[in-house]
């Protein structure tokens, strides 16, 4: 008997292989997701260390260097009032990443509790929440964000609020659907049987079991939020000049497309790379966390 236990212990997997560790091991095997993670980390570093990395002041105009093509002094060239495009792209990382993370955090903080309430309580609470969610989803995401940003007034903060609120219904729906699946499981019934109060069941037993799909959706939502911030800034409803943002840089670049194309290339490429990385990471996370693939 003791020998049998010892033998089974010997062949058992590593003792602390929890679900997150297993997911990380699976994620590590996906090259696309790892590349995405690497690029995201790189952009985070650029944003954090922008003051030390950027070769020039991002808002200092130089009338002697207007719309100069890329050169040794200005790797990405200069813009319409002689600012260094490379430095502006590096500083612009801050607005994009901040917008991505803050607006998705707003969606999560609003959407998850609301969805949890709808799915867990059911009944009229669910009815009301679901109808309101439908109404929000009936307004196309960016149009709703534009309208909200318009009424709140143009600024980066208001753009983040507008994007976060517009993306909330997606998280309400996702959380609600997941909660409805989880709450009929036996372990929830068991938690109820031993006398746990409903709030404790919702927070300690239901919530941890829906984290994985919410995390995947959050990663993909950051990609969408980065594009949305760039879109609002492109329309003039996000980051206000002279502060650098990739979207507003593209808006200006559009007017100089025939004689200064480099102004349009780099900010757009940065948006593309950052969004692509979050998409790759999100796709990889979905594959790694999807229990159906175990």
């Amino acid at each position, binding site marked *: 008997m003791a020998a049998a236990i010892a033998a089974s212990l010997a062949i058992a997997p590593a003792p602390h292989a929890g679900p997150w560790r297993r997911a990380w091991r699976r994620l590590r095997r996906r090259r696309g997701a790892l590349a995405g993670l690497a690029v995201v980390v790189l952009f985070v570093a650029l944003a954090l260390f922008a003051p030390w990395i950027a070769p020039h002041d991002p808002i200092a105009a130089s009338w002697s260097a207007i719309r100069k093509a890329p050169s040794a002094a200005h790797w990405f060239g200069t813009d319409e009032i002689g600012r260094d495009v490379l430095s502006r792209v590096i500083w612009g990382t801050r607005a994009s990443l901040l917008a991505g993370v803050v607006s998705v955090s707003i969606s999560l903080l609003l959407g998850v509790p609301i969805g949890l309430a709808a799915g867990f309580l059911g009944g009229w609470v669910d009815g009301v929440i679901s109808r309101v969610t439908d*109404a929000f989803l*009936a307004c*196309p995401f960016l149009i*709703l964000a*534009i309208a909200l940003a318009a*009424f709140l007034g143009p600024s980066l903060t208001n753009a983040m609020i507008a994007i976060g609120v517009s993306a909330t219904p997606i998280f309400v729906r996702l959380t609600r659907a997941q909660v409805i699946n989880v709450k009929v499981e036996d372990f929830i019934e068991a938690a109820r049987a031993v006398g746990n109060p409903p709030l404790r069941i919702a927070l300690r037993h239901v919530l941890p079991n829906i984290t994985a799909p919410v995390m995947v959706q959050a990663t993909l939502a950051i990609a969408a939020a980065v594009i949305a911030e760039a879109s609002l800034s*492109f329309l003039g409803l996000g980051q206000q000049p002279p502060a650098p943002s990739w979207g507003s840089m*593209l808006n200006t670049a559009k007017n100089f497309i025939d004689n200064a194309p480099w102004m349009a290339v780099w900010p757009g490429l940065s948006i*593309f790379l950052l969004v692509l990385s979050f*998409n790759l990471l999100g796709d990889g996370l979905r594959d790694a966390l999807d229990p159906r693939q175990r």
Partner: protein
Amino acid sequence: MFEFLVKRLATVVPTLLLVSMLIFGLQQLLPGDPAKILAGEEQDPTVVAYLRTKLHLDEPLPLRYAYWVGGVLRGDLGESIRTQQPVLDLIVQKLPVTVELALMAFVIALAIGIPSGIVAAVGRGTAWDVAANVFALWGLSTPNFWLGILMILLFSVQLGWLPASGYVSPFEDLGANLAAMIMPAFVLGNAIAAVLMRHTRSAMLQVLGADYVRTARAKGLSERTVVLKHALRNALTPIITLGALELGTLLSGAVLTEQVFTIPGFGKLIVDSVFNRDYSVVQGVVLVTATTYIVLNLLADLAQFLVNPRLRR
């Protein structure tokens, strides 16, 4: 089927009602007195007083909403502060331009997305599949206004083949109209093509593994017939439902695309009114967009009946 239709229509009513409340509520977000903000820079006291009575600002909120909705139901979306034109007229003027753009974009998206999805599913794991997936990832990650700028750079500035902007009505000169619309339509269709490709691929993969596909093959039908007639027809159901959700992306994307190519449509109208602080126009455009989106989704559900006889029971 009749019962389903009635039920489906019944869900539209509360949604529309809540959407109207949501859009009306936007006004509450304005910092300060709406009458003063709407009156513009000068804040002429007579104008402010006029607006206050006109917008019923002294009445309680639910009553103001009732006035507004009553107007909307009679086709009165208010009037533009700038041009004094009725909002509905402005929208009706701009709508055909955006509808043309959206239709062209959707046709392009279908023409790229569905065939590439089929090819990717049939050739799962081959170079075709990889290529289609790379295309989808590219389409989903490229901001469409940037793609628009790059296309202007290539086709207008470098090659000089297509105009960078300048909309011409198709009734004036169809050739010039198409030349002006083809780039924006492609830019707008691109991202949707990517999403449609992904949906088509996964729906086809599911269907291709089904028993009736094996039976069709066992009967000795050509692969072409099996894929296009037996598999695709069944895969279309989820493609239509999920594709209809992309119509929202189409409407959102049109705002940016019209801005890049200076096309005088719906999207340009909303952006211009945002900057003119012409809030009733913004509200009108959002209301019409949301209603259009709801109706299009309703139509997509009806289209399900046409392709899926099992639902007709």
